[in-house]
């Protein structure tokens, strides 16, 4: 469904991604692992159209995404839940969710709204609260709910567990499985290696702008290099 080939990208003179090849099939959960500053968010932003790569291309269902604007990419069915959430603090929870359907699935806004309220009871209790006054965990839920409002076919989650309490982290990963069970492919960018591999089917490890490992979650868990580098085992 998503095919990334030979992506090079960076900021000004600085190269961050140096030849990334990656694919995500329909209905998959793919984990993208890697420590701080290796370029995970940069790759997300290449996919979403915020960064134009210097080489390589991204295709979605065979259509070229590279060079398209973020809003066109949203319209095609890729939603990003960005690092730092980026919810609208001056808008209510309900308004935030509604704007999630700004570019796509506007006709089914009502149904999706109800569906998301059912997934996130905590949000549905706070529909009239300003998003800026939500707790960090609630804001994360809202960002995910907002992403789901566009009925994405691929949902990109950039470190969704960041800053959440262990209990909420559990809940977050369960949620990813649940969203995926409805047929949404998920690109899960995480530093939480164990739990990510618990829900993902396949995973890639990014190090200094290159994918250094890839395979099924089971293979990765068994890989002594990964265990050593990321789990300290």
């Amino acid at each position, binding site marked *: 469904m998503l095919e990334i080939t030979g992506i090079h990208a960076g900021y000004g003179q600085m190269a961050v991604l140096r030849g990334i090849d990656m694919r995500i099939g329909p209905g998959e959960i793919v984990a993208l692992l890697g420590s701080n500053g290796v370029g995970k968010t940069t790759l997300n932003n290449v996919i*979403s159209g*915020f960064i134009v790569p210097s080489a390589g291309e991204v295709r979605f269902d065979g259509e070229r995404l590279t060079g398209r604007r*973020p*809003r066109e990419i*949203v*319209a095609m069915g890729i*939603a*990003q839940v*960005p690092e730092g*959430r*980026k*919810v*609208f*603090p*001056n*808008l209510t929870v309900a*308004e935030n969710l*509604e*704007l*999630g359907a*700004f*570019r*796509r699935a506007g006709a089914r806004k009502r149904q999706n709204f109800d569906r998301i309220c059912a997934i996130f009871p905590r949000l549905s209790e706070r529909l009239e609260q300003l998003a800026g006054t939500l707790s960090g965990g609630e804001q994360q839920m809202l960002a995910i709910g*907002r992403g789901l409002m*566009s009925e994405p076919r691929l949902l990109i989650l950039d470190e969704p567990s960041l800053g959440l309490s262990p209990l909420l982290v559990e809940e977050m990963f369960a949620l990813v499985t649940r969203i995926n069970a409805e047929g949404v492919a998920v690109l899960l960018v995480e530093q939480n290696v164990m739990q990510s591999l618990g829900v993902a089917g396949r995973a890639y490890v990014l190090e200094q702008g290159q994918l250094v490992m890839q395979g099924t979650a089971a293979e990765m868990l068994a890989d002594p290099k990964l265990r050593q580098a990321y789990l300290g085992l």
Partner: protein
Amino acid sequence: MSSLILPAVLNGLTMGAVYALIALGLTLIYGVLHIINFAHGSLLMLGLYAAYFLFSYLGIDPYLAIIFVVPAFFVLGYLLQRVVIAPMSAGSEQNVLLVTLALSLVIDNLALFFWTSNTRTVDIPYAWDTVEVLGAYLTKGRVIAFFAALLVAGLMWLFMTRTRTGSAIRAVAIEKRGAEIVGIDVNHTYALTFGIGTACVALAACLLLPTFYATPQVGYTFVLVAFTTVVMGGMGSLPGALVAGLALGVIEALGGLFLGESLGQIGIFVAFILTLLFRPAGLLGRKPT
């Protein structure tokens, strides 16, 4: 003396509603684009001339001219932002200041060149009729302006809070990246906002002309008060602009009553300084976080 106070207050309210309308456009543009539009007064002046020429050449009543001038100015504002301000400022906020300042100089001087500094007025006798309100006699044109300005402020409030585009504008105002992530076209939204702000000022112009005049410098008369209104109401706050505009109209009228007509505006600036001293974020402004 006390018999003069009520009429002064009512008169002040009618003028204040026009200040509010002008400030509404300014504060909207500030709140969303984070730029201070120095060309706002010049656009008001253009609006006054537009209504004036429609009247003098085509005989169109300024109140009727609203249906032509306001949409035309919406488009003008949209294009100004999209074609002139955004490309020329290259994303830097200091540049935007210079661009809008330059725009205002160019517009004002072109107006002076083509239209001379003669004072233009339209002759619409019924606008000068008086209406009795609570025992005070008010000019009909001013009363019309008052209600029209309040109506538009209310409609704008509904638009901003109840429509999809309104939500998008509020979203872009504070979380640009988040807005792009949900697929909002930020540049279009900026231009739309500038267009709406310009439409407000054009409406104010049509409402003003029957009881006012047009000169190339007429914008300055209002823009200073409008800036005061915006700051006093809380930068970017629409209800704040409404409240502050009405308050300043009343303060000016009372200042005029007690200090003499020509000193009325002193009251405005005293009120402004007091606001800054005691409520630096403005009457309805949020403290910077």
